[in-house]
């Protein structure tokens, strides 16, 4: 359970904003371990999303390297990166990025069929997953506009894990949901983690971060601290909250 699946070496990412170089990530070294529920925290604009996109092969670093196992994905071509994402990554976004011209099933199948052969088993598997995440049969042929935000996000999660990715990435998945829906989504994420899924999630919300087994705090584009916890539910929630709160206070949150 302790093997490293993602690793960065002196990762740098800068943007030129109107001619001014802005170094968002600076010489960042980080390891993501198999089975962890890693949460990346930090102030707004500290580069959390940027880091997540670099880790997941959505974007290429300016300098430094990103390794997936032994493969240096930072040296991949765009098509290789697409293939990498297809097979190894799942993604949940903050805004609920479902395709509004497709119904629930088709939204999920659009991702699933990239990796798996069309079959009735696959359809059945998706249906089971949907049921499991509280999306009842009534909703399967509905379109995103006909669902609530939380339902949409759970569909998004099913779409992200349907190909059994090595890592599930999530960028503030609860950011645009009300607290009840957010809670539902977090429960779903915790459930997935419990079944062995490695997760890397970005958030700036304490309640969300509580679900993690490992919290990484980002400041000025570098890791400024790290905090490890038991899997959610295996310890006392109040002390868990206090511990995390203390860590974050130290970090200057």
């Amino acid at each position, binding site marked *: 359970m302790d093997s490293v699946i993602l690793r960065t070496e002196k990762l740098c990412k800068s943007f030129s904003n109107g001619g001014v170089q802005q170094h968002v990530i600076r010489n960042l070294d980080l390891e993501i371990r198999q089975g962890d529920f890693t949460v990346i925290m930090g102030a707004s*604009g500290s580069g959390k999303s940027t880091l997540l*996109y670099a880790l997941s092969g959505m974007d290429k670093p300016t300098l430094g390297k990103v390794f997936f196992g032994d493969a240096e994905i930072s040296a991949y071509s765009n098509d290789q990166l*697409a293939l990498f994402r297809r097979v190894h990554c799942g993604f949940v976004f903050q805004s609920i990025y479902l395709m509004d011209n497709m119904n629930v099933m*088709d939204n999920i199948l659009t991702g699933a069929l990239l990796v798996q052969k069309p079959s009735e088993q696959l359809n059945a598997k998706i249906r089971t997953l949907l049921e499991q995440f509280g999306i009842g049969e009534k909703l399967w042929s509905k379109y995103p506009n006909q669902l609530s935000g939380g339902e949409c996000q759970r569909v998004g999660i099913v779409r992200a894990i349907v190909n059994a990715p090595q890592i599930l990435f999530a960028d503030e998945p609860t950011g645009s949901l009300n607290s009840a829906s957010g809670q539902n989504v977090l429960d779903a994420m915790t459930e997935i983690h419990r079944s062995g899924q490695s997760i890397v999630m970005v958030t700036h919300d304490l309640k969300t971060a509580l679900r993690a087994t490992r919290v990484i705090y980002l400041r000025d584009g570098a890791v400024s601290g790290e905090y490890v916890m038991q899997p959610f539910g295996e310890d006392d929630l109040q002390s868990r909250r206090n511990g995390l709160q203390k860590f974050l206070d130290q970090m200057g949150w």
Partner: protein
Amino acid sequence: MQKIIRLTRANLRRHKGEALLLVLLIAFSMCMLGAVLVSFGEIRDLFPNAVKEIHGVENLLMMDARYFDPAYLQLLAEEDSVTEYGYAELVQSVYARCLDPEGREQPISQLFINQENERKLEQSPLISALSEAEITAMEHPVWIPYGLKDNFRLNEGDTYTVLISGRAYPFQVAGFYESGVYTDSLAGFKLIVSDADYRVMEQLADPAVIVWFNTADPEHTDTNALCSRFISKCEAYSQQDLNLTVTRMLYLQRVSDAALEVKLLLILMSAMTVLVMLTVLFIIRYRISNDIDEQMVSIGVLEALGYRFADISAMFTLEYLLIAAAGILIGAASAVPVIPMLYHLGELMSGHHGAMHWHFSSLLIAAAILAGFVLMIAWMRARSVHRYPPVQALRRGIRDHHYRKNLFPLEKTRSSVTARLAMNGFMQDLRRNIGVGLCIMLATLTLVFCLILTVYTLHEIDFMRAVTGFEISDVLLGVTPQTDLDAFAAELLEDPDVRKVVPRGEDHRQFRWKERDAAFMPQVYDDFSQLECVKAASGRFPQHENEIMLTNFDRQQYQLRIGDTLTLSFGEVEKPYILTGFAAGISSSTVFLTGDGFRRIDPAYRNNGLHVYLREGVDREAYIRNLSQRYGKSAHDAMQDAGSGAETFEERIRQAAQQKISAMMQNYGVNHVDYAITVGDTVISGDSSYFRLLFADSTVDLIQSADATLVLAIRAVSVLFLIAAAMIVIATVYVLTEASVRKQWMHFGIMKSMGYTTKMLMKQIFLRIIPMVIAAAVPGDLLSVAGIGMLSDYIGTALISVPLIAAANGIVLLLAICSAYWSARKIRAVSVMQLMTE
């Protein structure tokens, strides 16, 4: 308002490519429509104006001077509707030839008139760049009508050589004049010569008289009936058969003949404009719908701020009005050089010159039509924002809940996701796709049609052979009356260069069909099955002496049917003939019959010529030279031999005798001549049996000079249509692709995050568009095949060519692929990063 303009500008900037395409399409339409509107009236009036300008006479009857009697004029005066009348003398040489700028002999009939007689017909000013002194210094000055000037590209001071009975008569071009009659190579050209030269010509060719009359109301007078009446009276008066010698040239007919080709050209150009504007219509409707969909939220915001629907519709409309304005300006600017070109083409085709007036008002009308059209379709489409009240717009709308049935759920997919997604995308835009498909269908139809026409006209002779409906062989021979045609044909056939020889007959006298007051020129063949260009579009060729075939054109003109009986008259004789069929092709006023059929009405008739078909690769000119040497002098050769070849005194005498004999045979129909010339003690004798040839023409050269402008015009229009069709394909596919990509921009981002590659997404777009292009091209092909089939039936030659249709479809597909690729390229710029939100 400020805000509306700002939004419009932003929209334009966002759709640069599409805006540019629309501007181009509208510019093209404006150029065509403007050119048509400005020049239509001008070109149509070229001939009537020319006649008015030179105070030309309206109706003319041309007759052999031998049959003319000044007393006829009194008979003309008896007609109530005739207001003015008179006559003029001139000389006609039907069998004359002239040398074209390349020095080739052209069989174009020539008419010679002196200035005094010319002024009786028309008062055209004689225009010359030369001084009075220079013209007076000329030995044989000639004034040339504009039609001939344009045909042969003549200038003042050039030599214009007329060949009559084997002798060359070089004239010096003094200048040019506008003429109302005899202004094209089919009818011949009227040359104004000096009195001295006129007297020479009177001896060489046939003196003729033109009787003319004007009527009070030229538009509504039945001058044809008037002529028939007049000729009958003349016949009664003179106890002579005149019908065969009189040629009518009536005003209304002349007016419609003069502008026929140009009118056709202009109609085709208008059709092209309609086609392009149809595309503009689809594109604008499509674009506005997409824009409204896309900007539903901004629309909602604007509405929430208190903008009225009309304001927002105006915003979308304004964009297209600006585009239309740009297109119209560019189009009008490009019409400025096109209009004079078109006008000049009109001058070339009609054989008349005129001063073109720039009717800027017509350009304004064209601009107003186009602007109005664009405004109307844009406004009508933009009004659909009514359907989105602010709440719905803001919530990204009601519309989204009216999803069509999911026809291709991915659950049912058994093959490629990409194909399935493409199908879905296609179905969601079904209605708009049908519009675009319609454009592509029309474009394919046009492309197939025009490509075939263009390719067929590339080889003029084959095209003319296919469409004229007349027999076009390699060499056309006229034989002397005493020649035994069959024996001569057999003799010619012994030459290994000759593939086939077909006897033919031609007569310059017409058959008349009295009931309908129609005239037909006879084409006589004993065995029609031998012919290669004359084909029966329906029915069969005449075989028996009481059978005739007319043309497809006449069938329509007179509503005839196979089996009808027509009573035709030839001179004073009348005979009924049964119609066996109709000849294919664009010929008209022609009656096809057998030699026996002709002898039924004129027992003296004999076939008088041969079609010679040479084997592949045989040089026509060389063959003709060889032929003349063996069987007699054709005009050209006799002229060349005039000074050379004859070495001894006796040879020179013989040559002179032969020239005299050939002149007598050609001009006076002399059958046989024996001669004996005594010089001192020597008697030089001979006869005309040496002469079997009256003329030998390369049919190909003849056709080439006569119909070059027609072929040129067909080709020009075809090429223009090809360009228009190509633009339509490019524009519609571009717009469709562009819109699909823009609409799916976010989706493509999501898909990229899931691991879809740019290539897969481009493939998806291609799969959505290209099958539609193909599906639209197929009915386009079918329609064009049907159209070409009809045309083929009419002209009697199968124009359908599978390779060409395939090529046209290939072009459509290639253009569509390139255009789709050009705009689908933008998918590369779709980034997963755009999904990042903060």
